[in-house]
């Protein structure tokens, strides 16, 4: 599998990572190497094999639907790069 520059640019956009144009070429090469490496999985017969969803032999636990935590907005916000009046501040998203 070989990825071209345009595909890498598209993935980078989906992943919200800014990749400078001059790095797209070498990144395409590295990612293609990895994808070529993983293609050996096609040799494995997986007909009727269920995809693993959990390695532990247990079901997800259920709990009562009740509030057990919270009430400390100041602590939640304490690491925010920009906050105001109990909220995180982000650039304007509505035109």
């Amino acid at each position: 599998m070989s990825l071209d520059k345009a595909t890498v640019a598209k993935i980078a956009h989906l992943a919200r990572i800014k990749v400078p144009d001059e790095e797209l070429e070498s990144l395409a090469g590295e990612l293609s190497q990895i994808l070529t490496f993983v293609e050996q999985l096609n040799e494995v017969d997986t007909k009727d094999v269920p995809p693993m969803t959990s390695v532990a032999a247990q079901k997800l636990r259920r709990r009562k639907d009740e509030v057990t935590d919270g009430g400390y907005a100041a602590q939640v916000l304490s690491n925010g790069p920009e906050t105001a009046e109990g909220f995180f501040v982000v650039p304007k998203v509505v035109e």
Partner: protein
Amino acid sequence: MTALTQLTMAEALDGLAKKEFTAVELTEAHVRAVEAVRPFNIFITETPDAALSMAKASDERRAKGEAGPMDGLPIAVKDLFCTKGVATTAGSRILDGFTPEYESTVTSQLWRDGAVMLGKVNLDEFAMGSATITAHQGETVSPWSPGAPGAWERKIVAGGSSGGSAAVIAARAALGATGTDTGGSIRQPAGYTGTVGIKPTYGRCSRWGIVAYASSLDQAGPMTRTVEDAAIMLRSMCGFDPKDSTSVDMAVPDFRAALTGDIRGLRVGIPKEYRAEGLSAEIAALWDQGIAWLKEAGAEPVEISLPHTKYALAAYYIIAPAEASSNLARYDGVRYGLRVEGGNLKEMYENTRGAGFGKEVQRRILIGTYVLSAGYYDAYYNKARQVRTRIKQDFDEAFKSCDVILTPTAPSTPFAIGEKMDDPVQMYLIDVFTVPVNLAGLPAMSVPAGLGADGLPLGLQLIGRPFDEETLLRVGHVVEKAANFTATPPFMG
């Protein structure tokens, strides 16, 4: 008296109980050792003041007869565990300035049991790597590197991603350290530094408060200088935690009691597929030696087959990046860490993540994004999860004819910083013997077994049945005794 930093945890507990020294004295000796090993770049954050006040509190508890199972033991914490009030970086610029308001479950249990925190140690960025060379804070140099600190003849890697944890113990600057293991990140650095490391069964240790890499594979574990110490520390780290949905509600045994030395009649599986190409002659010989040691102790080696071994890495390099791409979506410049402004919200995200993540982390997020994207999900991600089922079935089948499995920890000896860095796939191959264990969720440990011709440590890996850490420790203890690994890093003279 032996220098306090040379003691094992078991010896230190004994000395504290007999009042031969205090927790403050033990901690002061380690704080000085932490300063002395600065050239190796092991610590991201040193916390000497916290250490001394914790040690003082420990002495007070002991005086009142309330000492816990790890009371007064100075340890280091991989900088992937959130520690309340102490910066937690995951080795990444994107967590610049992040100081958690909460404590991870595993570290809180260690403090509950009396351990003393010396500081936070280096790792590969977000635990993605096998050498501890990708952190924003720089690379860690193995204490085993030949030459004087700072003027090494060859800078050797400490392994990774828990390389700081491995290095700090090997350098005698902590009695133990926490690690995490997603594809070998405890066992491989333990093997590379002549230390002991355990990756417990998936679900044994809570993942709550640990910066996530690949949640279905991540597991915390202890790193120490002896198997007995690993048993002591493991007991404090394990336990059910309702805050982690995959934590298993099971009693935690007294692991130390498992070290009986008696392995007579135990069947030790030797997987034939691990003799594959890439295994150095030296390591093959060490493996044979390990088999001979266990045979002498009364165990019975049996050949087993793990036919899908060769596909484990490929499955891992789909599953782990897929989970990482999802887990690392949270670093967006809004709630914590770095923010790099942009013209609008989308640009701010892209600028922040472009500047905040290092190259290897970006590569893995991009691969993960690709394999999960529309049209490729079945071909890559589902296929990998089917192969993962196969790998688990291999182990289930093998454990019908054996009780524990013995393999080398890594296929080659530790390499120098700068080697194996051009081709990401080459670096991935180092984890060929450790990755299958994470995919199958099994417990495994690395025990120091000898030195290679280059004077660098080599480890043997033991793999156990789910939740059978006790057999693992019992056999590891026998290997440890037979190997009698007493070598110390060259800088210690």
